[in-house]
């Protein structure tokens, strides 16, 4: 990951081999209170440009914020993928005896 400050925004890149686009987009969503993020693809990189909502914002701080958010979102995605079968099982068990999921028997 690298960061570079331009005239209009701060550039941050992520390696496409190690960062998933979904995690990157989730991270961009989560930091939308302080910046908007433009995401483009360039070769084996995601090229992100950070645009602060407050023009006086510390650009390095913004870069740290998006990087740490991407790491957290990647970890969340990893946990979600590992636990998805169990999650589905728990919800299926939870609703299995409520009658809410029953289908009506067609009248004979």
């Amino acid at each position, binding site marked *: 990951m690298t960061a570079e400050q331009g005239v209009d925004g701060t550039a941050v890149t992520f390696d496409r081999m190690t960062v998933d686009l979904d995690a990157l987009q*989730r991270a961009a*969503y*989560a*930091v*939308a*209170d302080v910046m908007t993020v433009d995401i483009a693809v360039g070769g084996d990189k995601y090229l992100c440009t950070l645009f602060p909502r407050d023009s006086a914002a510390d650009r390095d701080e913004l870069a740290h914020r998006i990087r740490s958010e991407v790491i*957290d*979102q990647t*970890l*969340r995605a*990893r*946990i*979600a993928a*590992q*636990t998805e079968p*169990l*999650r589905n*099982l*728990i*919800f*299926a*068990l*939870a*609703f*299995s*005896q*409520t*009658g*809410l999921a029953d289908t009506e028997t067609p009248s004979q």
Partner: protein
Amino acid sequence: MTARLSRESTTVAPGRWQLLPMRFHRFDGDCILLTNLVGEHVFLPEKEFLAVVDGSCADQHVLAELRAKHLIQLPGERLPAELLAIKLRTRLRRLPDSTGLHMFVVTLRCEHTCRYCQVSRQSSAKSEYDMSQDAAQRSLELVFRSPSPHLKLEFQGGEPLLNFPLVKWIVAEAKRMNQAYGKRLAFVIATNLALLDDEVLEFCGREDVYLSTSLDGPADLHNGNRRRPGQDSWEQTVAGIRRIQDSLGPDRVSALMTTTEASLDRAHDIIDAYADLGLRRVFLRPISPYGFAIRRRGGGGYDVERWLEFYQAGLDYIIDLNRRGVPMVETYAAIIAKKMFTNDDPGYVDLTSPAGIGLGALVYNYDGDVYASDEGRMLAEMKDHTFRLGNVHTSSYEDIMLGEQLLQPLEQSLTLSAPMCSTCAFEPYCGADPVFHHATMNDFVGQKAMSAFCQRNMGVFTALFRRVRNDSFAKELFWNWAQQ
């Protein structure tokens, strides 16, 4: 015979566990808060958390705690998933029994002119803003269609005591109709108490009707917010509370406060005003972004950060009061504590998912219009009828409860699928509020990173968990509040 487990049988070897569904939140320093599907939680150092996720953790105490809190399980185990399913079902058990709260706006008339009022109050003489008996009858027919075995009918306004004959009629008629339904009925009059007299007191005592009022704190603060001829709202309210406590009992009256800019530095004064009256619960509520509250001089000119400072000052003062032996509960914290420490969901309409609109509450306006929530009615006063579900004169129960006006915001705002909410560690304690997000962002879901609802609740959850982690007295206090 005493069975003894060998150390080997309880030891979990590295990599020999499965993660159960969990979400995390970065806390102070390197601390991570981990929560499971039903809100059971653990604090871990970041290093241990990462070791648990990658299978390298060797700390048996950590692994034992994670197993106990259903955050991990051993391969082949079935019990944790089954227990989680039971707990999840317990939390959601209110869903099939929908709509326990029914609010009757029996009049828009009011003799107060509160600066933050969220409805279009009318002068005391304009009886065209009273609910008719016909509208009340049709509303009651809808009330009794609700599946909930517990029905609470709350009378609102305006000032409902300005249409007291209709309140009496509705109570009598509801009890008569209930002979065929056998539900548990409760009645509450939300009143400023200025019109409380012997007749009202006698009626409330005889018919088991509770009273809820507004008390913003000490006299200067309350009277500054809640204006009426004579500038004696506080004196009237306090006298009314004391009369009810003396004649009906201390638990028959409760009070709510609204935070205005003038309240922000006065958390202690507000709580003391409640304690002085023998009130043991205070609800430190922010102002709602509806009606007069958001107009100039409506009292809502502060941001979430400032409100959170006020809230935490009040919460710490309440904790200290309890430490000194003075019982006092902060209602919002108690609602969240129940979700943190039990498998119960108190069903507070702002903190449920699916959202509480319609499912938790319905509002019958004076003119027969039916709204999905009180806030939905307030929006209608601002000419936004998004949450108007129908009218008692023309709509059936099915029209109201199965119409797109209700189903769309419910479906769109589920926290288990909403962006950011679905991965948030606080999701088990939080809720969907499509009315707030529609009002502030013109969207039922809202952009959570910029949502004042999200910011406020994240701030409250963090404040509560910080005290749980750092203050054993506060942890026990919150646990006790959760059991009430």
